[in-house]
């Protein structure tokens, strides 16, 4: 049960964002820009960053939702599965491996990012902007994960829920749905 009363038809982050819409607005905007805005990293690659950070923060809700989104965007589910175990074994670019390693360090703390990790990313072709965005996405998911679990919002057990949510994230992005969320009340 959530620590505070949240809309029952909106588990996880959605209920929180609806509960406090004035703080939700900048968080949504930031997420939409970082994960869906124009970028030299693909939307799928950026969802991998969200996934690995959520996984390491042990936030089940965010991990399941962003895994679903990444799987859809990448068109396969192998990569997400592997990066959670061993980044080096995934079939992704060396640059992406280095960025995911930076994200994992950020998850622990800002200070744990090493110069060597930054060098490795740069040597594999990562730009300063890509490094910047990786660190900020990782930071943003440290916010989300703590927000979702810190208020004990509901984590649905049904895998079908995350398939639906993944599709919603891929098709509609992170902005608030224009019609709101009342249509989900009887689902």
């Amino acid at each position, binding site marked *: 049960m959530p620590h505070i009363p949240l809309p029952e038809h909106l588990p996880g982050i959605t209920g929180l964002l609806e509960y*406090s819409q*004035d703080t939700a607005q900048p968080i949504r905007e930031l997420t939409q*820009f970082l994960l869906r805005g124009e970028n030299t990293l693909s939307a799928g690659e950026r969802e991998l960053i969200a996934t690995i950070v959520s996984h390491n923060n042990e936030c089940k809700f965010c991990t399941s939702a962003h895994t679903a989104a990444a799987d859809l965007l990448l068109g396969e589910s192998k990569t997400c599965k592997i990066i959670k175990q061993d980044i080096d074994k995934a079939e992704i670019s060396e640059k992406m491996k280095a960025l995911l390693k930076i994200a994992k360090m950020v998850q622990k703390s800002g200070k744990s990012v090493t110069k060597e990790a930054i060098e490795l990313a740069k040597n594999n072709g990562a730009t300063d902007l890509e*490094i910047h965005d990786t660190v900020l996405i*990782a930071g943003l998911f440290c916010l989300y994960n703590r*927000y979702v679990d810190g208020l004990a919002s509901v984590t649905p057990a049904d895998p079908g829920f995350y398939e639906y949510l993944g599709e919603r994230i891929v098709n509609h992005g992170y902005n608030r749905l224009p019609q709101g969320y009342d249509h989900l009340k009887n689902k």
Partner: protein
Amino acid sequence: MIRIIHRISISQTSVLVKNQQDLFQINRNKSFCIFLRILCSQFLTFQDKISENQNFTVRVFRANDSFLIIYSKYPMAHIKLLNEELPGITGLLNYRPETAKSLLNLAETLLRSESTLTSGERELIASYVSHLNGCHFCHTSHGAAAAAHLQCDLDLIDDIKQNFATTGISPKLRALLNIAAKVQKGGKNVLPEDITLARNEEATDKEIHDTVLIAAAFCMFNRYVDGLGTFAPKENEAYRQMGEMMAFAGYNRPR
């Protein structure tokens, strides 16, 4: 902080100088090295300024036979910022205006919009979480903002590290700070009894919500600031004016 000794442009060599020895190895070109040494010794007293734990950054821009040498008291960030004189998050906000806008709106809403928690109390939560995350820039700047709101001495910044040993804070704020500290460790650490404790001190749902979100947001801000290796002035005094600006002009002030 940064001093331009001799100006010219083009290709760049950047070196993080930890001691005098490093400086001699900046460039294998001997005559260049001697030249550099002479220039730097003119402006740097190594015994004074390069202490054991303090890093120096010397940047050398060279073209043909002239040089631009910039030295800074602080190491460079992990990425090349547009203005390297801006400390902590300010250099990052300047680097990426697209994300700065949302980040500043979030800080403004969380810390300065209408709430039953005062801005002073909310800045204390922000500063406390930043301290727990070991983020000197955020801890000190938000501590200075809290001091400005609460009209108290900058010693408040140090007292935050002592878990508010001398600052009189309400039992409600103490219960909320307890929740914030749990959030800093990880969301799952917040237990029903922590919430009950806060409710017993008459904290409302909205206040509990805001506390969790402020704590979570600073787990982002702190990682952003330190994860990109930005520099932070050490002394509390260096943050006084910044704190006043944050408190009274707000986060969306013209920059």
